[in-house]
């Protein structure tokens, strides 16, 4: 009797393995490992891949002078599903907002462009080249707005845009300065002291 039971042992193990596999299949456990959101994980990587494809697609549209299509494609990144806001996700979103802002400004939508900059700054809150770039884009937009208003004879509006452009560029400079200081510990030009 015991020998007969021993003969059935491999059968029992095989049945258990099959049951386990079926159970895993039925409960949908064949998923990529859900790594913590605090580490580089598949969801983050999927978002970055999507952003990359969208920017390449926008390049094609931009070359075709199809600014609206480029904007729509890039909005898939900023308004579509997104993973938890890790630093890299924030930076890619901020950079995409900056590009949409440029495109909208080129398209004559200055208000929309400035909103994009504002959204980008809400994401890139730490001093970085991304935040500095957003201020830079804001300054360029205000410059273009200034020129547009000046062309229309709105000198007051143009002057205000000019002031905003100067402010934006100053913020870009100080942000980049702090970014460099944080990265390499250099306190800017001689005599300038610590970053603001």
């Amino acid at each position, binding site marked *: 009797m*015991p*020998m007969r*039971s*021993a003969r*059935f*042992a*491999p059968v*029992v*193990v095989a*049945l*258990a393995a099959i*049951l*386990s596999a079926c159970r*895993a*299949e039925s409960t949908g*456990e064949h*998923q*990529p*490992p*859900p*790594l*913590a959101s*605090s*580490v*580089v*994980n*598949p969801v*983050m*990587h999927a978002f*970055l*891949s999507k*952003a*990359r494809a969208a*920017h*390449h697609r926008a*390049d094609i549209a931009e070359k075709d002078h199809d600014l609206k299509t480029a904007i729509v494609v890039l909005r898939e990144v900023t308004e579509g599903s997104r993973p938890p806001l*890790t*630093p*890299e*996700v924030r*930076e890619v979103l901020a*950079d*995409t907002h*900056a*590009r949409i802002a*440029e495109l909208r400004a080129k398209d004559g939508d200055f208000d929309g462009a400035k909103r994009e900059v504002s959204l980008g700054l809400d994401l890139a809150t*730490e001093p*970085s*080249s*991304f935040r*500095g770039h957003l201020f*830079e*884009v804001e300054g*360029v937009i205000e410059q273009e707005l200034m020129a547009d208003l000046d062309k229309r004879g709105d000198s007051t509006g143009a002057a205000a845009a000019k002031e905003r452009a100067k402010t934006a560029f100053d913020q*870009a400079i100080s942000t980049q300065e702090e*970014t*460099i200081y*944080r*990265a*390499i510990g250099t306190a800017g030009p001689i005599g300038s002291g610590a970053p603001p």
Partner: protein
Amino acid sequence: MSDKKTKSLGTPQTPGDDLELPESSDGDLEEFAEALAVSLRPREIDARRHEAILARALGGSEADAEEAEAQPDERRRADILRELLDPSRRTGTSSADASLEHRLAGLAHALRMAYAPHEIDQLTSERLLRPALKLASQRSSRRYVAATGVVLAIAAAVLLFFVRPNTPNGGSQQAYLPKLPMIGARSTMDLFDPAEPFPRSGGTTSRIDKIEASRSAELRDNLFASWGVE
């Protein structure tokens, strides 16, 4: 010697002394003197003479000390005993009623082994040791192995059913806990030269390319780490 005549040993007799000594020849005297000397200082006896003395003491001379003819039953039992002591000379004469011979053979064997022990074979050793050490027999060992196999198989079945593996194919939520250090999410600024700001316009696609490529490599490392592969 009792029928020999007695005589005086030549020592002066005292009056009234009626001690009579056996009459003897010179040879008898010499023999007697030698007996006295031997009793005083014993020495090695000649083997042949020793046998003769024993034969006389046992009631006969050495020559007529012949053994009586063995009876048929004595011969049969002798054969049984010989077979038991030396199985290689087996002739098939042993019978079931040879319990006495068996006991004698056992005793003889034990004496032989005590006097001149030799190497014991493994089977005999195990046969002798098993009852002493209360070891399980081969049959009970097989039963034990079979029972253990069944228990292990059931345990493995339960384990396979309730515990899910930690590989990507069918891994459980708890099993996804990383075992090796992983690359954390962080700013992508280390991919760019902080002293060289982004161009005023354009370049976004190339930056995203660089970020995606970097994180793609890091994701691969993290997945291997989550699977326990260094």
